[in-house]
């Protein structure tokens, strides 16, 4: 196994493409920092520029967290092509005839590509932090907590890289795993929105109803007349979206990454680096349209609802467990197929 790991890492080391990708990933956050700095300099027209701590923290996260959007896509292209060459050129046969077991071959391929995926993430985070630190925005990693959050995203990227490696190992044709991997990454955005739209569960809606009725009562209305139609929350979409949310880490993009559009708003409140993540449907326009439920509770009230907001620590733990479990599932199922695969 050690021999094969050395082999795989040497192959990555000797691959020009792997270095080019690493370089590009390290450069992307720097370009983002430079571009935003130039915009700010242009807008401020040479006047003194001050940035609040909250904004600095938000921007630091913005600069380093986008690896989650870039790295999976480049891995979707790189890994199947790189691993697929072993089939196309037949070198995988040399590994088998040398006396390595299929488990060793499979394991070394997966470990090396997962390590490369981690290296891309770390390169992005590192240069993003350095560039941010040098820039007028400064770098604020929230006492190191931000790095823990980035680690959760990295674990998810590693799980994805394992899937891409497995696809390349079980499908001999090089084009098919590339297409499947790219489609998988392209579905991230939709899957994330679908999953997080239905992140809530029955207990949360019940607790919401309790607090909502209390507030309606206080407002002088009769709660019975304004009964909550729960069926509209737990409709067809919920039965698809909720299992995706519970079983996969598809929701990470929406829950962890702030959209670049929020930066255009440019006020401190909107540029928050939150320590709690909302998991309720009540601020969603779509949900309001579907359920006709008026938003009776403001954010302060919603925070009293069980499960409406979850601490980042809990969210990280949930996603980390799912990333590890999916890595194990991809590995196990992949090996079961690879074990019997005709490799010539």
């Amino acid at each position: 196994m050690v021999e094969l790991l050395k082999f795989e890492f040497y192959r990555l080391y000797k691959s020009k493409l792997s270095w080019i990708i690493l370089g590009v990933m390290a450069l992307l956050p720097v370009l983002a920092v430079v571009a935003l700095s130039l915009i700010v300099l242009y807008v401020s027209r040479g006047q003194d520029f001050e940035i609040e701590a909250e904004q600095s923290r938000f921007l630091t996260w913005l600069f380093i967290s986008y690896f989650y959007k870039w790295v999976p896509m480049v891995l979707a292209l790189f890994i199947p092509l790189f691993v697929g060459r072993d089939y196309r050129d037949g070198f995988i046969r040399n590994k088998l005839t040398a006396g390595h077991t299929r488990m060793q071959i499979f394991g070394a391929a997966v470990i090396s590509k997962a390590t490369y995926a981690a290296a891309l993430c770390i390169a992005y985070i590192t240069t993003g932090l350095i560039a941010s630190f040098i820039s007028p925005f400064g770098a604020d990693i929230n006492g190191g907590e931000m790095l823990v959050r980035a680690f959760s995203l990295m674990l998810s990227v590693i799980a994805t890289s394992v899937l891409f490696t497995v696809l390349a190992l079980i499908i001999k044709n090089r084009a098919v795993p590339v297409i499947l991997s790219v489609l998988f990454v392209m579905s991230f955005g939709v899957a994330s929105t679908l999953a997080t739209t239905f992140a809530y569960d029955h207990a949360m809606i019940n607790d919401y109803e309790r607090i909502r009725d209390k507030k309606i009562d206080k407002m002088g209305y009769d709660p019975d007349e304004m009964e909550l139609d729960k069926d509209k929350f737990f409709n067809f979409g919920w039965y698809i979206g909720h299992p995706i949310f519970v079983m996969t880490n598809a929701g990470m993009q929406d829950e962890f990454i702030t959209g670049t559009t929020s930066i255009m708003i440019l006020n401190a409140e909107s540029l928050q680096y939150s320590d709690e993540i909302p998991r309720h449907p009540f601020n969603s326009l779509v949900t309001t349209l579907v359920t006709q439920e008026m938003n009776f509770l403001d954010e302060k009230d919603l925070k009293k609802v069980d499960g409406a907001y979850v601490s980042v620590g809990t969210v990280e733990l949930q996603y980390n467990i799912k990333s590890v479990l999916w890595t194990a599932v991809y590995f196990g199922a992949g090996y079961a197929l690879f074990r019997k695969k005709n490799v010539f």
Partner: protein
Amino acid sequence: MILKATGLCKNYGSKQILKDVNITINKGDIYGLVGRNGAGKTTIMRIMTGLQVPTKGNIEYGYERGRLGTTGALVELPSIYANKSAEENIKFQYLNLGLKFDDSIKELLTLVGLENTGNKKAGKFSLGMRQRLGIAIAMVGDPEVLVLDEPINGLDPQGIIEVRDLLIKLNREKGITIVISSHILSELSKLATRFGFIEDGKMIRECTSYDIEHAGEKLMIIKSSNVQEFNALLNANGFKSELISNPDKVTIHGEVDIIDIAMIAKNAGIKITDLRTVETDLEEFYVDVVGGMNHG
């Protein structure tokens, strides 16, 4: 014994590729696998090298099969990275076997005549160069057994001679056991010390090169100054000889002592201008064995 396979069967779905094949390969053999396309030679080689698992049957290895690099193989196409140079490909095989890079990489390249290929990518090599690189990769780490499927395919005459000499040298000097298949039976007969004849997934015969050489009646063909008198003299001395005309020659059937023949000619003042013996060759033997099987 370095490898003994018993009752090997291999099925692809309902199609039976190998049918209860038994093979014994002894240490130091150059074992030639002979058979037509689709007979099952490559499948046997894949099973020997661990590329495939037999559906049924057992293989015993007379060496530590689990140790890396004990089997070197070139099965079907050379397994080389097309986007890497010859030297880099050899280095990858060194890493594959857990060996450290040293001067033996250059020696290996020189041995197969690829020392001057520099940074040229293997994908741009001729078929012959690729074959030679494949052989070099198979030889990395001095394996106990070399399994070579059609290794002289695509080689020019000079290349064929070089590969043949190389394999003989490896076998004699390093004691490497070689299992080889080739459609060029004349080449195989110059190399192999033992043969296995495969037909329709069955091992129909295993024999030594001596068995083949002595399978049929030997024939000695002699050109001499007075063929009629010489033929009569030979008959008188108990040899089964006969006269062949145009050009006039005397043939003697069976195992004979050349010195006896020479003495008879010398005593009678007959001048022998040419003398050669004809033995059964591999091609003839193969046709006999396979033909017999097909008509059996």
